[in-house]
């Protein structure tokens, strides 16, 4: 806890907007009340989450040190800041950056906070936020005040609320956009922040804006509310109008959903009211008790898009007039208008490039990957590629100086965990590169294979199963060494990694996606990644990849090498990776990777994760129950389940959706039966009996419960069983296959918890 905490309030008096000041004061009071035991821990947990103060790994006070589970004896003892969350345990502070837009002073503030309250690193997230880690809860009011003084809020950065409103970082300067979505995204962000209609959601709600439908920058299709800029000619007036294609109910998470079209053209004046009406319908009809089905995508799935639309439009009709719906847009148009600092120019000649004293190759690559012409002639955007989304306090200060020197402080964060500097005169690119390079921010390869996206994973996230950042760092190192010698088609592939099935690393929309799972081999828990191939990043994350096979973490670099080599050697002219994967088919892919599924038991490095020498364990996720002994029949049953699911995927691939759905359902039954047999070996193959026994032995007893997802995955089985016999569509069988994969993964985890883990 900082010695200066009591002083910042007075120091910043008058520099913080009244509403933000009141909110932070109230939060500080809540902290005091919680410490006195006068505020319930659950209530305090949601309060702090709505201020962006999140829990971090080991905040339950237990950590495996590689030999044993250590009790972390914090000075505040058993005082909690939420269920199973100790007060002193360091936490993560998420900071909302609407549309990713920042100015130089805000970058400096972020640098100071990273240095004084965190570990010197600010992390850019896949939703254009910042995150600081290892933050003490007692420091958060001061941290929030310093942000508020720089016009940044952490309000509703976490919790069941409207999260950061993201937008294409090229909005306003992109050559392909319909129009600049920036003011609309900022207006929506301001309008929904703290809005009374958004305070009673069962789960979070994420909006996103794109300026076009063909690129990935806004990722509208995977958001709860996705807006894509559109133009049309009014049939009556003959004049061009602007508006939005509005999508709802998209989302990644454990089972990804593509957003559904709500309206093909929403006029700007209707944008905010319609969003409000959607919020009301979500708050009123969305699931509240079962948080695993509480996202709006499930509500839309249950109601159907037509019924959902009907409810929203009815709600829209009765909304009282609110002048802010148009005022906020006008204000944002004025407030966020941008212009260049320098006159337009031309790119340096090749002769000038060669004069860069040994840096010319780097500069050429940087020009190719990191710059993009703006629609305004003579200007480019420049991407500052951050390794794993991390930037130091000193680099932030340097970046701040650089954006002041070359632009009118026009910089944005991106969903690829980078920065984009906008309005750079072409004449300045060489000088800008030199300035960035001098502070380690001039790496080429933005948006390329080397620019790997990763969530925090087991490094700091308590849901993490495998080390996504460790793997990302390793792949980055290996890919960097040969990235620019590789075939052009490989250079432009995307790798995205999540530490678990929750998809914060956006693995579903990568060419090569990975998410963390665990497997038990020879009595040891072994970190693995499920390989997800063929997702589509462009077209606003146009389609999702499918899981192929789980591979030990330490073999994933070989997976990348094999797949990229095969692509280079075997692709047809102009064939995309997605199409190549589709053509190869699951059977061939699995065959290609099959020998990598089993680690050599003599190589002990496989039993620890990347960047973490501790013997791997799931114990850090929560303490599991011990049934005493390893039961080999379970492994057999789970393998059968995986096989059946694989066949389901093949069937789906060949268009046999009915068979795919049936097989996915039976794969879940196989896995459930395998677990039931641990306790009841006479269980038959009757689905009714399997489900009933599974429910009694694993669900009602909570043995199957994931430490954080609870009974979510068991419900997938129960839902599938209830719907058995009904017809499957391509979409429903696809969802069922995803759910079956997660159920099987959960069965593996449950089995790990049942058996005694062998430790070194």
């Amino acid at each position: 806890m900082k010695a200066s905490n009591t002083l910042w309030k007075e120091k910043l008096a008058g520099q913080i907007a009244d509403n933000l000041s009141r909110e932070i004061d109230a939060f500080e009071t809540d902290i005091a009340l919680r410490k006195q035991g006068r505020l319930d821990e659950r209530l305090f947990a949601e309060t702090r989450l709505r201020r962006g103060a999140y829990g971090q790994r080991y905040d339950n006070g237990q950590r495996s040190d590689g030999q044993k589970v250590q009790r972390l004896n914090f000075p505040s003892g058993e005082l909690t800041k939420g269920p199973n969350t100790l007060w002193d345990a360091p936490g993560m502070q998420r900071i909302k950056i609407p549309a990713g837009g920042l100015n130089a002073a805000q970058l400096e503030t972020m640098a100071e906070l990273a240095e004084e309250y965190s570990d010197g690193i600010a992390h850019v997230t896949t939703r254009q936020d910042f995150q600081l880690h290892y933050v003490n809860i007692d420091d958060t009011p001061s941290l929030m005040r310093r942000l508020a003084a720089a016009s940044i809020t952490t309000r509703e950065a976490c919790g069941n609320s409207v999260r950061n409103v993201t937008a294409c970082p090229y909005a306003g300067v992109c050559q392909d956009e319909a129009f600049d979505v920036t003011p609309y995204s900022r207006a929506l962000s301001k309008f929904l922040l703290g809005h009374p209609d958004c305070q009673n959601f069962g789960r979070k709600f994420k909006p996103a804006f794109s300026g076009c439908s063909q690129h990935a920058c806004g990722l509208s299709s995977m958001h709860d509310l996705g807006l894509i800029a559109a133009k049309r000619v009014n049939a009556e007036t003959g004049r061009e109008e602007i508006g939005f294609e509005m999508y709802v109910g998209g989302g990644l998470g454990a089972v990804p959903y593509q957003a559904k079209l709500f309206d093909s053209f929403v006029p700007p004046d209707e944008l905010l009211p319609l969003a409000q009406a959607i919020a009301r319908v979500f708050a009123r009809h969305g699931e509240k008790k079962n948080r695993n089905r509480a996202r709006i995508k499930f509500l839309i799935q249950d109601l159907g898009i037509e019924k959902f639309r009907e409810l929203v439009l009815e709600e829209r009709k009765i909304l009282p007039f609110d002048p802010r719906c148009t005022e906020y847009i006008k204000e944002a148009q004025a407030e966020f208008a941008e212009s260049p600092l320098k006159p337009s120019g031309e790119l340096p000649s090749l002769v000038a490039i060669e004069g860069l004293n040994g840096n010319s190759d780097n500069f050429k690559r940087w020009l190719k990957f990191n710059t993009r012409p703006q629609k305004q002639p003579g200007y480019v955007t420049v991407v500052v590629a951050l390794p794993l989304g991390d930037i130091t306090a000193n680099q932030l200060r340097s970046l701040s100086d650089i954006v002041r020197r070359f632009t009118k402080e026009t910089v944005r964060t991106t969903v690829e965990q980078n920065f984009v500097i906008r309005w750079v005169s072409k004449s300045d690119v060489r000088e800008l590169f030199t300035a960035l390079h001098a502070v380690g921010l001039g790496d080429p390869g933005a948006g390329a294979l080397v620019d790997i996206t990763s969530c925090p994973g087991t490094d700091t996230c308590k849901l993490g199963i495998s080390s996504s950042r460790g793997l990302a760092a390793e792949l980055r190192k290996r890919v960097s060494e040969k990235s620019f010698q590789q075939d052009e088609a490989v250079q432009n592939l995307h790798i995205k990694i999540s530490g678990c099935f929750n998809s914060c690393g956006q693995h579903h929309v990568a060419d090569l996606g990975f998410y963390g799972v665990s497997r038990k081999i020879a009595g040891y828990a072994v970190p693995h990644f499920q390989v997800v191939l063929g997702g589509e990043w462009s077209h606003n994350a146009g389609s999702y990849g499918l899981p192929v096979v789980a591979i030990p973490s330490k073999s994933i670099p070989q997976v990348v090498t094999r797949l990229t080599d095969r692509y280079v050697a075997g692709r047809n002219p102009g064939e995309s990776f997605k199409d190549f994967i589709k053509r190869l088919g699951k059977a061939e892919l699995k065959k290609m990777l099959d020998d990598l599924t089993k680690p050599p038991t003599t190589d002990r490095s496989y039993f620890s994760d990347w960047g973490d020498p501790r013997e791997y364990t799931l114990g850090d996720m929560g303490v599991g129950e011990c049934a005493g002994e390893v039961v080999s029949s379970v492994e057999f049953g789970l393998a059968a389940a995986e096989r059946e699911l694989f066949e389901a995927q093949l069937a789906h691939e060949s268009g046999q959706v009915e068979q795919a759905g049936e097989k996915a359902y039976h794969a879940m039954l196989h896995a459930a039966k395998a677990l039931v047999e641990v306790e009841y070996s006479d269980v038959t193959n009757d689905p009714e009996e399997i489900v009933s026994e599974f429910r009694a032995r694993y669900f009602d007893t909570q043995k199957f419960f994931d430490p954080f997802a609870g009974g979510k995955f068991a419900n997938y089985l129960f839902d599938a069983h209830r719907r058995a016999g009904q017809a499957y569509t391509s979409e429903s069988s696809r969802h069922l296959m995803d759910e079956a994969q997660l159920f099987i993964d959960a069965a593996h985890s449950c089995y790990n918890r049942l058996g005694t883990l062998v430790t070194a």
Partner: protein
Amino acid sequence: MKGSHSIELQHINVKLLLKDSQGVDLNPLIPVFHSWIQGQVCDELLLDVADYRHVYGGPGVVLIGHEADYSIDNTDNRLGVRYNRKAVLGGGNQERLAQAALAALTACQHLHEDTRLNGKFHFNGQDIEIFVNDRLLAPNNEARREALSAEFQAFSERIFGETEYSLSFGDDPGRLLGVSLRTSQPVSVENLLQNLRSAPTAEDLAKHGPSSAVPDYDWREELKAAHGAD
């Protein structure tokens, strides 16, 4: 220590620059830091290891603790053993400076003696950097640097003894208030530890409880000056 008697220095960082640090591989350090957690070898409660080797000029590898972090820090591309005191300490400024230096030196000694590191992490014998990681208590301005100069000189005399040294402040107002100390000839970690041996441990200082002193730096004066008020 004229002018600094009531300036409270908290959250002191001490960094000991390493010898032959070019191209040193930090990877072997990770299991070493994990073993420190296993053995809880420091005064502080040790929690986790954060790996930032991928970041240019960054914090390197950090051993996260509750009261303090230890790291092999590469800020400004100067590799060193860094101690970052996070929790408030009682006592006076000299005691708190000594506590941080003692912790950094002890960590350095552990690293040097650890056979897994093949003696690759050792103090260069001459360069120590000190930072105050709190901009409100210690803004990096001329007045503050001047006011604290005697405090740092007194500490330098204590830690270096008879050895000659030079002292220079960094003057970038965006950076933390920091001072670089350099001796005219190499001094061993053991000698420095010996010079500081009367320094209290964090545990001793914690017993005093947080200091009640309020920093004499007054932002009100600064604001008045900025707005032309009298």
